[in-house]
């Protein structure tokens, strides 16, 4: 019955993002992508909410939000 349970989810502030792709590179699960060098998207089906992307983002563009 394993399922992903997150207490927090990453969200991006594209204003701050510089498209460096570090979030994509370091996300352990591969659940964040920089699409066409313009948009950062998350796969919430599988994202574990670990916060690595937020830590690694050099511009602080990613924040972690409490899940409902």
């Amino acid at each position, binding site marked *: *019955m*394993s*399922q992903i*349970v*997150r*207490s*927090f989810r990453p969200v991006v502030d594209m204003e701050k993002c510089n498209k460096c792709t570090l979030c994509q590179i370091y996300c352990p699960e591969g659940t964040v992508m920089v699409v066409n060098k313009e948009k950062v998207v998350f796969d919430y089906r599988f994202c574990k*909410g*670990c*916060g690595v992307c937020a830590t690694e983002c050099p511009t602080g563009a990613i924040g972690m939000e*409490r*899940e409902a």
Partner: protein
Amino acid sequence: MAVFSGYYKPLSNKAKRILGIVIQVRNVIEIRFHGMGGQGAVMGALILAEAAFSEGKFAQKIPVYGGMRRGGDVTVFLRLDDKPIRRTSGIYEPDALVVLDPALVGNPAVKKGLKEGGIAVLNEERAPSDVDFGVVLGKTATVAATGVSAQLFGVRAIPITNTTMLGAIAKVTDWIELGSLFEPIRHAFPGRIGELNVEACKKGYEIVKES
């Protein structure tokens, strides 16, 4: 020296109680705990078992997980009875459910086998009446344990919900007295964190809603 203790808590705080055998008609309550990640559900069940034992009851706790790796969902079987518990099989048709993570409430595997007329104690913000298990229950209780965790322990990847749930259980069931929980909680978490957990437990007792 009869003790009810797991290796999950520091040895130096081992409970030391004498085993008193009371033969009675079997009156077992079979409870299933569901939690996510870490030792929350296991510790919760253990504390409840210790507390029940201190009230003269017998208890049995069987954790069920895969490897020993942390993370993922955790199921724990808990039995409470007035005489020694001998059966060791899993609990597939529980009298009661305790769900420690809101994300699990909707999971069909969680409610599987729950008896009609049984009890469900859930970590839920919603009111009991808003939760439909598809089973006619004797009692549904909800308590916003994740919120309590945030309040007391701050924002954490894996919130601490078990002690709050235990407080709720003390309120809505006849399994345990609230007061019996404090000592086992302090055994499990020595020092300041123990006191915070006692507080969480009391909080659960206060804010639980039942239908």
